């Protein structure tokens, strides 16, 4: 994809105008700073508390990425086993569906009882919310194989292992990446919610602290940092996808330009 100067300038100008409007309107209407501080205050809060923000962001990042990594490893393993084992499909899968129907973040208080107050209860929640998109997408990707491709494999006497390694697994990559993107953003949310429930570090904890002292500027800064964190993770996956499964993104674009 190519950006023209206009594509970069337009949103940039728009955001600058938005910030200026915000700054001016807050001043004119005299909105109290604890309800909506001007952007200037956000900047000051960011600079003043940079180290604290960095320290807590790192904790949340570890929790989210830890939970995600766990969900990826277990999710893909589970998806493969469900696709290949009728027994698992009949036994564990219904259990998973019930779990899926529960609000995962509601497990956060329980996790404190089960796992404790520290990092691992947050990783557990991040894992829980990220697990399902990975499983669902990987299962679909493993199953959505052109039937003729399987005929071709049978005609050529491909082994079951070959069909998995050379057809089903690569076929599932674009689906898996779609799941990974959703899972990563969700795992950040999961970590924050878990921190809301019980924590003494992390951006979720810091938001609560900012709230208690009516430091709205700091709370808003944290939200922006969280957005940035999710975006960075999302973009990293996008780059990885272009490397590992170029056909998933490019197929449609190229068809359009031919």
């Amino acid at each position: 994809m190519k950006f023209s100067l206009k594509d970069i300038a337009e949103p940039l100008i728009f955001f600058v105008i938005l910030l200026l409007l915000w700054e001016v309107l807050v001043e004119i209407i005299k909105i109290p700073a604890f309800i909506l501080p001007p952007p200037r205050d956000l900047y000051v809060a960011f600079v003043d508390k940079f180290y604290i923000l960095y320290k807590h962001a790192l904790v949340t990042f570890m929790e989210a990425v830890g939970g995600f990594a766990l969900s990826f490893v277990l999710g893909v393993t589970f998806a493969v086993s469900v696709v290949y084992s009728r027994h698992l499909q009949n036994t564990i899968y219904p259990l998973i569906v019930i779990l899926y129907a529960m609000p995962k973040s509601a497990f956060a208080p329980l996790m404190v009882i089960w796992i404790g107050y520290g990092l691992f209860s947050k990783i557990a929640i991040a894992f829980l919310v990220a697990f399902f998109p990975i499983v669902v997408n990987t299962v679909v990707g493993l199953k959505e194989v052109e039937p003729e491709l399987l005929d071709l494999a049978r005609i050529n006497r491909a082994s079951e292992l070959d069909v998995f390694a050379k057809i089903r697994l690569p076929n599932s990559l674009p689906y898996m990446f779609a799941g990974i993107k959703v899972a990563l953003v969700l795992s950040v949310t999961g970590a924050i919610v878990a921190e809301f429930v019980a924590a003494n570090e992390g951006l979720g904890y810091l938001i609560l602290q900012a709230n208690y002292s009516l430091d709205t500027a700091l709370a808003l800064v944290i939200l922006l940092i969280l957005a940035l964190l999710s975006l960075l993770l999302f973009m990293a996956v996008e780059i990885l996808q272009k490397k590992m499964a170029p056909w998933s993104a490019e197929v449609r674009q190229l068809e359009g330009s031919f």
Partner: protein
Amino acid sequence: MAPLIEAEEVFKIFKSGAKSVQALERVSFDVEQGSFVSLVGPSGCGKSTLLKIVSGLLPASSGSVSVAGRRVEGPLENVGMVFQSPVLLKWKSVLGNIMLPVEFARLDRTRYLEKARALVRLVGLEGFEEMYPYQLSGGMQQRVSLCRALVTDPQILLMDEPFGALDAMTRDELDIELLKIWDGKRKTALFVTHNIQEAVFLSDAIIVMSPRPGRVIERLAIDLPRPRSFEMMSSSKFCDTTLRIRGMLASASGNPAAAAGSTT
């Protein structure tokens, strides 16, 4: 020459729950070794099903198919298959796709890589070896698919409307190329199509099938000289043959007006 493929009284009934659909009824035919035979019939007449039964991908409900005197009971060894869609692996290059049967069969890579490259040259895809399917046009993708079917040098080539999804010009081009390749290798070829002209142009013999349940209406020998060229399409023999087939198909579907009205 003895027939290589023999189908005897093949019936095929698809059952799903209480419903059952009869796809094939008492289908018998044979294909001589080294000949090019087409199955022609209206869509839904079971010709693709028949091809799958011949390849061993589907079992017949009753009756039997044998290849080289041996009854077909599972996927055949050394059969090349071309489908209507190219069915290429999106994550493999042209060469990688062509080599897929070699990988599956765990054959000697280096030896077959040479064959693959020769086939690529034969179908005019030189320079595209490292390209990926999404970078190729439909006609080129189907050429890759043809190479893949031929790379292990199979005895039989089964083709299920391989050029049916392509535009008329590309199809003509590929028909000519297919004949060129077939002339060089003389594989026994079984070709499914609903395009009568294409069938007459390519084949030594045509098996005309009725609408569902598919039965063999007639087997016609096409004695046009080889190599075939497009000029033959305007010869009276060619026209007579296509008209005859069209008439058979029309009366089988109980609609004689279709014979006079269609122009394809």
